[in-house]
């Protein structure tokens, strides 16, 4: 079976087949023998060749959050059908950045106004949560399209605050 894997803005071409209890997997031509078994909820013991790893894996459809050695990765695994669909969705969303609050809190200050040009790393908005002020930054270049909240407003985790295009 073939998959396209997207991780950290890079794409990898992956092939996998069963060999006994293990799998033979090639990532862009490099071959691995893998034996993965679920120990408990979301925790896998993974043997790659004879190297042993404990891996936490959470899946949502094609999207995986994988934690290994205190590093966390967002990985998308697409088969043929999924690839076509993903292509479509991507072209719609391209260039759009949504600033969301990662936690509930209060909007202390909005640092931009609609129509402002922003650069990656520029401070956009300050949210107070857990008794601390936290500045949320732009991750890309663009123009502020919409500011959804007002200063002083209370927001929930995941709420959209600002849209940049």
């Amino acid at each position: 079976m073939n998959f396209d894997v997207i991780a950290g803005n890079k794409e990898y071409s992956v092939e996998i087949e069963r060999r006994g209890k293990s799998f033979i997997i090639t990532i862009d031509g490099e071959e691995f023998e893998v034996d993965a078994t679920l120990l408990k909820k979301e925790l896998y013991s993974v043997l790659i060749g004879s190297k042993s790893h404990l891996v936490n894996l959470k899946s949502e459809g094609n999207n995986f959050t994988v934690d290994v050695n205190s590093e966390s990765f967002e990985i998308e695994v697409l088969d043929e059908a999924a690839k076509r669909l993903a292509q479509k969705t991507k072209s719609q969303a391209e260039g759009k950045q949504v600033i969301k609050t990662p936690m509930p809190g209060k909007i202390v200050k909005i640092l931009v106004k609609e129509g402002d040009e922003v650069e990656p790393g520029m401070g956009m908005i300050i949210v107070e949560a857990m008794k601390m002020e936290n500045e949320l930054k732009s991750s890309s270049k663009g123009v502020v399209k919409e500011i959804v909240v007002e200063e002083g407003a209370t927001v929930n985790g995941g709420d959209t605050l600002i849209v940049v295009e």
Partner: protein
Amino acid sequence: MFKKILIANRGEIAIRIIRACQELDIPTVAVFSEPDRNSLHVGYAEEAYLIGEANSKKSYLNIDKIIDVAQKSGTDAIHPGYGFLSENSGFAARCEKEGITFIGPSSDVIEKMGNKTTARKIMAEAGVPILPGTNESIESDDEVYKIAKGIGFPIMIKAAAGGGGKGMRIVNSADELKSCLRAARSEAGSSFGDSSVYVEKYLENPRHIEIQVLADKYGNSVHLFERECSIQRRHQKIIEETPSTAVDDKLREKMGKAALKAVKSVNYSNAGTVEFLVDKKKNFYFLEMNTRLQVEHAITEIVTGIDIVREQVRIAAGEKLDLTQDKIKRNGCAMECRIYAEDPDNNFLPSPGTIRTLRSPGGYGIRYDTCAFEGCNISVHYDPLISKLVVWGKDREETRFRMLRALNEYSITGIKTTIPFLKKVIKNKFFIEGDIDTNFIASRIERSSAPSDGTLKIAILTAVVESFKKAEKESLFHNQHHPEKSQWKIAGKWQMWGNRF
């Protein structure tokens, strides 16, 4: 001894105190705010009472309500933990008035040490070294200018009622003085309702080293050596160790004696900590006295074998210290890593939420204090401390390697934590050499680092195996349920699945 102890706190420290009480065979009473109904301290205590809403002012800072629960439950002592009401002299006074023992020093001592200029004055009089500066709050800008010229720039302007880094400004030159002074006064006013400030010489890149003390009600006092707390982010400690690599026996003795002078000067009783700044030349200066249990008390417990919380309870109950300075020996080294729900790659932004999975370290030399469990919620309302990982070792390198091993075993998913950052510090070559100061994190640690390629491949391989198994299961499902393999039906199914993407 007490009949029952109420713990006016939450989180890991509430559990720490409950454990000490259970080992003394004293029943405990927990209090909790509405969102804390599912917190572990509620389950660990013998009794538990709801005291109000999420907002601390309505619950953990609600003195009337806590006193009410204490009386209703027949409690004769209250342990305040750290934070919340632990350094609130009004609360201690209220306990004294109601005939409930406050497990800590007397209210007037808390008040004296809470006012930073009063504390400076007392320490100066007792012969404890303080930084050059003023022991009174200052009104006129001119006066500040005169003092600054006298001690030399840079200086630090600090709020007299201060704490937690608020109302503080570093002034590097005379030009900056006016605007800094204005800013500090305004911040002090809005934070503490008291805009008075004072001036201290600013020490560049000092070490933060503190001395743990214990004193009973009969004038007996001992110190339990130092803790090095220079590894800080946002002016808050994140790694502590004892002994300090900067402190030799001579300095230890001098600092210990100074701390005991501080204790005697105010007739201090119970556990407390005298914090010092130490410069490159091993001069040390009084910073402040914490009239309560510290987060990092555990490292001192491990190397001295003295259960500080147990001692706090015994002292508050009127028992005499059965320790003398010469009997207190340090055994090996200890280090603490604080695991916070924070994103170290994003300026330590808090990362509250639900812990999906949790694997905690164990084995030789590991002490693990936590309020977390798989599925628990790290609340947005309170301090994001998840756990304290405390490690003992025969020497510093054994301790450091053990800490690294333990951090490697430790896994939390669902929220971001300081674990990966702590590993970076433990492996840092300046840290290994003990070459640290309060500016360490800013100057010595590269913040973001690219994830290693090898680790990424492990992640990809696992995700691909999982995807393959899922695809297999789905096709098995189709085959089992549609043995006729009608093309129409399979197409329909695929469309259905397709919609999920």
